[in-house]
């Protein structure tokens, strides 16, 4: 069977490419019908019944059950805030940007449903600063939704009030970590907070706060429309429903594909209606299954035939589906080069609060640079392991350990762990041959 897309969240933007982001286009494809339906429900039942039954797990990276997250809100403590994590910055993840630019009304509707469910009257969208078009599309959508009575005071005569503020970040990956995001939203430097207290108890302005990802919220209208139990029939095990995977690198058809969880990596990468295989026809050497923070998998049958199941891949291979970014590399790519560039990213984006990450990520980058550029020394892989061990003791553990406040530190070690697991001989050979020229884009295509 050929794997294909299962479009729920992406249905509108695929079916109405000419106007999916406008109010007219959105209304013509059923926008805000789920909100009207939800407003007729008991607010608490939305989380406890519909979302809980759906099995929906956060689509930002951690995969935490959405209904459980809402249930942690400190009871009888108001005001409470809903904060949307739209600070998409995980390398090679581009699904939220698509949703924001092409279907902002799905996000607005999802926010309104979630806010009603948790009795919140002021929501913030923390939008990545670089998304200038997305900012315009979102602010227009909010203005139009207000004019139609889907936001503002007494929404659709229900007595429920909600305002949404779009807040632009300004170029800091760390603000995708929820407590750093809250700090940034309060006008501070975006540095993570020590937890507990968790945001559900003391978040924005020290009030109970839910932080949800864009795709998570954009899924809510479909859960309301189908019913949570029917949604849970999609997917596999505790990875229910559909997810949007951002597929990039050495595939014929890079792009965002919404698929039912449970299809395999091979389906995603090779199906003619999805990735279509490598453009060169060469074998997949390795791929990164869940954003730059995840450890890697290889082109082996065991890995390619693994299902897109959050728990299975974590328990079996110590990797994560994370942000849903799948990066594919054929056998011309030098894995040390990819590890170096990702380490450079983490070193640059480390906020500097915790010493192991601030210093360690920089050293990992330097050592990987010399390895990947032909200057490696014989014991460099062990040196990397030692630095990694100071950030994420054990290095190869899954779930990872950390000596830092937030997961950015251990994420910087993922490349080292992956080189050690799958490319140890290749890296050691690279380091033993003495300085030599390795092309920066080792056999770059085209």
């Amino acid at each position, binding site marked *: 069977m050929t794997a294909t897309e299962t479009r729920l969240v992406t249905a509108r933007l695929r079916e109405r490419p000419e106007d999916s982001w406008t109010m007219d286009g959105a209304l013509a494809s059923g926008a805000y019908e789920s909100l009207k339906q939800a407003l007729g429900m008991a607010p608490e039942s939305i989380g406890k019944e519909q979302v809980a039954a759906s099995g929906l797990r956060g689509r930002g990276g951690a995969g935490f059950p959405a209904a459980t997250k809402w249930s942690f809100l400190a009871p009888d403590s108001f*005001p409470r805030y809903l904060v949307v994590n739209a600070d*998409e*910055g*995980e*390398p*090679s*993840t*581009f699904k*939220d*940007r698509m949703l924001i630019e092409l279907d902002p009304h799905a996000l607005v509707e999802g926010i309104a449903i979630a806010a009603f469910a948790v009795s919140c009257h*002021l929501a913030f969208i923390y939008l990545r*600063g*670089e*998304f*200038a*078009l997305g*900012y*315009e599309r979102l602010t227009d959508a909010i203005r139009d939704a207000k004019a139609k009575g889907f936001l503002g005071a007494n929404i659709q005569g229900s007595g429920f009030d909600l305002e949404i*503020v779009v*807040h*632009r*970040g*300004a*170029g*800091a*990956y760390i603000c995708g970590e929820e407590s750093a995001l809250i700090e*940034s*939203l*309060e*006008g*501070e*430097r*975006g540095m993570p907070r020590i937890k507990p207290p968790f945001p559900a108890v003391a978040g924005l*302005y020290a009030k109970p706060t839910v932080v949800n990802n864009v795709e998570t919220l954009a899924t809510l209208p479909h859960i309301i429309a189908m019913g949570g139990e029917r949604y849970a029939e999609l997917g596999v095990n505790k990875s229910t429903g559909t997810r949007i995977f*951002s*597929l*990039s*690198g*050495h595939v014929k058809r*890079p*792009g*965002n594909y919404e698929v039912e969880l449970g299809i395999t990596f091979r389906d995603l990468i090779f199906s003619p209606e999805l990735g279509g295989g490598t453009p060169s026809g060469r074998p997949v050497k390795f791929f*990164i299954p869940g954003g*730059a923070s995840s450890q890697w998998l290889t082109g082996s049958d065991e890995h390619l035939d693994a299902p897109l199941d959050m728990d299975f891949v974590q328990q079996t291979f110590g990797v994560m589906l994370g942000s849903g*970014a799948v*990066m594919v*590399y054929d056998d011309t*790519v030098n894995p040390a080069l*990819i590890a170096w*560039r*990702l380490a450079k*990213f983490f070193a*640059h*984006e480390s*906020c500097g609060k915790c010493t192991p990450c601030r210093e360690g990520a920089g050293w990992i980058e330097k050592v990987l640079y010399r390895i990947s550029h032909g200057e490696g020394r014989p014991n460099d892989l062990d040196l990397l392991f030692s630095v990694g061990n100071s950030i994420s003791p054990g290095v190869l553990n899954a779930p990872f350990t950390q000596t830092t406040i937030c997961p950015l530190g251990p994420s910087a070690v993922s490349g080292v762990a992956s080189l050690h697991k799958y490319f140890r001989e290749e890296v050691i050979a690279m380091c033993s041959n003495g300085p030599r020229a390795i092309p*920066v*884009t080792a056999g*770059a*295509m*085209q």
Partner: protein
Amino acid sequence: MNASGPGHFNAANLVRAHEIVAQYPKPKSAILPLAHLAQDQDGWLSPDAMREIAQLVGETPAEVLGTCSFYTMFKRTPCGKYVVSVCTNVTCLILGGPEILEHLEERYADDGDVHVEEVECLAACDNAPSMQVNYEFHEHLNPEVAAAIVDDYKSGVLTARGVSGGRTR
């Protein structure tokens, strides 16, 4: 700090600035949006602008600088009219991003209007390699196409956003 207020925002932006502050339960939250507003107005985030932002949110200029200096989008020295942000993260890396960066850096090395910078993943990997000019996306690039786009901004064929990606200058 000038107690009478530096009067840095123009009249329209000052109205907008007060609207922005009023959106938040606590005024300090408005620092980032006000810095974007100032940067779009001036082409950079000047000390004068940060002093006025401080007054608007009831903080010291040092607090505003402390916050703004954390974020790479805020340019605290004049940076020309066009911020050209070239991605070299992993997908762009294998598809030619570094070559685009090198070409643009050389070509505009002495051009005060063009600020070329290397940036992290822009979330446009399906159409890599990619760049932004004042936060407008440009995708499926090679060095020559990228340079032609920058030249089109310079000659007015393309209309640029503000240096912070806003529509108002």
